C-alpha cells in the first residue's frame, strides 16, 4: 500500500481571508462593523465601517428649539448622558453669556464625575469580559447600579436623564442625597481595589494587554485621540485641567498618564481615574455651597447671532459642541458635535494592524467607544 506524501505548508492555500466582524457581534459594543483582512490569525488591514446607528441628531437639533435639544443629547453617549447635557448647556451659556450659580456648577461637577465612574464601570466590565474575565463584569455592574439609583433619585430617570437646564439645574438636590453620594464614595473606594486585585497583577490579563496596540504620544495627538487613549500614551491633556469648566477650577485632582501607550496603560489610566473621580466627588459634595440653582435666564432662549465651540472632558475624551445661532429663529442654525468616540475609533485601524484577531476585541474595548455617539 502506498503512503500518501504530505507536503508541509504547500497543502494550504495562502490567500488572504476577508472576515466581517459585526455589525452584530457581542464584542463590538453595539453596531460597529470591522472588515478584517487576515493572513492566518494576523490582521493585515482593517476597514472600520460605522453609521448603523445614525439618527441624524445634528439635523434634528437644527429643527428643535434650544431647550428640546438637551433631550436629544442624552441619546448620544447613552452611558454618560449627564455629561452630554452639561456640555451642551455650557455651550449655550457661553453663547448667551449666562452666569451659572456656584451651587449649580458644583452639582454639575458631581454629576459629571458620577457619570465618569458609571461609564468606566461599564467599560471595565465589558472590556474584561471581551478578554475572558467574567467576574469583573458582574462586580462592576453592581456598582454602576448604585450610581443609577443616585441619578434616579435626582432626576427620575436611570439612563437618559435630561438632567440639566440652560443656566442651571432642573431642580435642587433631594434631601439627604449628598450623604448617599458620600456613602457611595466609601463603597466605591474599596471596590476599585477589588477590580484591581482581579486584574492588575493577573498574569493572563497582563499577557493579553501588555504591548498590545502601542501608540506613541505624538501619533496619538496627530490621530486626534483624546481622553484615556491619549493619556495612556503619556500626553497629560485633560480638558478639566486645561480649560476648566463647571467647578473643576476649584477642585484638587491629578491627571494620570501612562508611559508605554499600550492597552495595559490605558487600563491603568482609567483605574486611576476612578480614584480621582471619587476624590473630586468628595470635595464637591463636602464643599457644596448654598444658593440659587438657576442663573438669570430669559424666558425665551434665543442667543444673539454668533457662534462658538466649547469642549468638556467626557469619560471618552474631548466632547465638543460647535453651535451657530442666527439670532432670528428659536433653533440653532448649525448644531455640530465633536464626538470623542468618533475620533478615537479612527485610531482603531492603525492600532490593530499586525495584531492577532483575538486582540481586535481587546483593542476595541480599550478605546471605549459608544456607537450611539460615533454615529449620532
Amino acid at each position, binding site marked *: 500500500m502506498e503512503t500518501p506524501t504530505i507536503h508541509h505548508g504547500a497543502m494550504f492555500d495562502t490567500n488572504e481571508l476577508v472576515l466581517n466582524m459585526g455589525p452584530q457581534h457581542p464584542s463590538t459594543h453595539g453596531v460597529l462593523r470591522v472588515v478584517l483582512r487576515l493572513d492566518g490569525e494576523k490582521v493585515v488591514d482593517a476597514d472600520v465601517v460605522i453609521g448603523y446607528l445614525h439618527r441624524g441628531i445634528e439635523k434634528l437639533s437644527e429643527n428643535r428649539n434650544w431647550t428640546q435639544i438637551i433631550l436629544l443629547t442624552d441619546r448620544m453617549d447613552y452611558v454618560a448622558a449627564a455629561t452630554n447635557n452639561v456640555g451642551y448647556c455650557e455651550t449655550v451659556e457661553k453663547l448667551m453669556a449666562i452666569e451659572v450659580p456656584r451651587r449649580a456648577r458644583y452639582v454639575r461637577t458631581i454629576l459629571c464625575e458620577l457619570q465618569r465612574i458609571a461609564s468606566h464601570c461599564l467599560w471595565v466590565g465589558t472590556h474584561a469580559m471581551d478578554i475572558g474575565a467574567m467576574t469583573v463584569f458582574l462586580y462592576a455592574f453592581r456598582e454602576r447600579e448604585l450610581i443609577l439609583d443616585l441619578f434616579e433619585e435626582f432626576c427620575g430617570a436611570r439612563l437618559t436623564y435630561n438632567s440639566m437646564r440652560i443656566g442651571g439645574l432642573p431642580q435642587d438636590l433631594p434631601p439627604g442625597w449628598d450623604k448617599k453620594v458620600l456613602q457611595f464614595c466609601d463603597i466605591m473606594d474599596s471596590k476599585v481595589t477589588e477590580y484591581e486585585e482581579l486584574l492588575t497583577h493577573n498574569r493572563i490579563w497582563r499577557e493579553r494587554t501588555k504591548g498590545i496596540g502601542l501608540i506613541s504620544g505624538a501619533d496619538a495627538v496627530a490621530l486626534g485621540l483624546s481622553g484615556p487613549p491619549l493619556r495612556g500614551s503619556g500626553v497629560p491633556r485633560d480638558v478639566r485641567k486645561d480649560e476648566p469648566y463647571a467647578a473643576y477650577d476649584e477642585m484638587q485632582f491629578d491627571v494620570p498618564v501612562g508611559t508605554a501607550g499600550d492597552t495595559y496603560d490605558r487600563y491603568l489610566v482609567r483605574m486611576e481615574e476612578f480614584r480621582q473621580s471619587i476624590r473630586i466627588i468628595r470635595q464637591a459634595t463636602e464643599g457644596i455651597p448654598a444658593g440659587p440653582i438657576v442663573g438669570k435666564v430669559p424666558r425665551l432662549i434665543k442667543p444673539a447671532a454668533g457662534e*462658538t465651540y466649547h469642549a468638556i472632558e467626557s469619560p471618552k475624551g474631548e466632547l465638543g459642541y*460647535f453651535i451657530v445661532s442666527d439670532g432670528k429663529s428659536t433653533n440653532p442654525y448649525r448644531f455640530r458635535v465633536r464626538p470623542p468616540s468618533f475620533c478615537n475609533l479612527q485610531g482603531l485601524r492603525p492600532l490593530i494592524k499586525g495584531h492577532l484577531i483575538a486582540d481586535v476585541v481587546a483593542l476595541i474595548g480599550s478605546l471605549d467607544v459608544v456607537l450611539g455617539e460615533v454615529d449620532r
Partner: protein
Amino acid sequence: MADEPETPASAVDAATAGKPAEPAVPATAAPLIPAAKPAAALGAEAAGAKPPAAKAAPHPPPAPAPPSGPTEPPPPADMAVPAFITTLQSAVPDGVSQISYYVGDWTVIVPLTLMTTTLRHLRDAPDAAFDFCSDVTATDWPPRKEARFDLVYCLYSTRHRHRVRVKVRVGEHQPVPSVTDIWPAANWLEREVYDMFGVGFTGHPDRRRILMPDDWQGFPQRKDYPLEGPGELLMENPIDWLKLRQSRDEADIE
C-alpha cells in the same frame, strides 16, 4: 477592501459629466434621486441639483428669509490680537482675510488658495503649534451663491493650550485640498463633511461616505435637504417614486 483612493480628478469629472444624466429624471425629484453610479451621482448632485423648489410646495419652509452668512464681529479695539495670528500674518502675506472674536473664541478667515500654507504654518510655527485638530465641520449658507459653505477647522495646541478656529469659504463645486497630510485626524472628519455637505476634498486617501449608506443620494446636512429625507416622496406619490427608482436602476445597468 474598499479603500482604494479615489482619484482627485474624479470629483471634477463627475461634476461635468454627471449633468447630461439629469433630464431623464422627472423634475420633482431632481435633488433626491439623480442618476447613474454613486460616484458620478454624487458629483452630479454637487454640480447640477437645484434646491427642491417644486417639491417644497406641499410643505412650505417655515423660514423667514434665511440668513445670508454668519456674523463675524471684529475683535474690540482694546483687545490684543494673539501673537500667533500676527506671526501668521507676517509669515503668510494675505493668508488672513479677516479676524473675528466672539465670546472668547478667536476665528481666522483664510482664503481657499492659501489654505494649506496657512494651516501648515499654524501647525509648525513654534508660537502657534496647533498639533491637535479637534474638529472639521462645515456650515451651509445657501443664499451666498459664490461661496456657499464655510469649512470650520477647530484647532488646539497641546503645548500652549490655546485654541483657534480657521474658516475657509468654498463654493458648491470647488474642490478643497484635504488636510489629512497635516493632521491624520482629519480623515474621518473630512469624510463626514463630504457625506453631509458634499464638499469634495482632493488628495483625501479614502473618499467615501461614512455615516450614510454608500448609495445614498443627496447630502443631508444641507439646508435645502428636507428633514424627513426622501421618504416623503415615497409616501405621497409611490408611483412617481417607483418610476424614479426604475430609471435609476436602468441607468445603473447601462
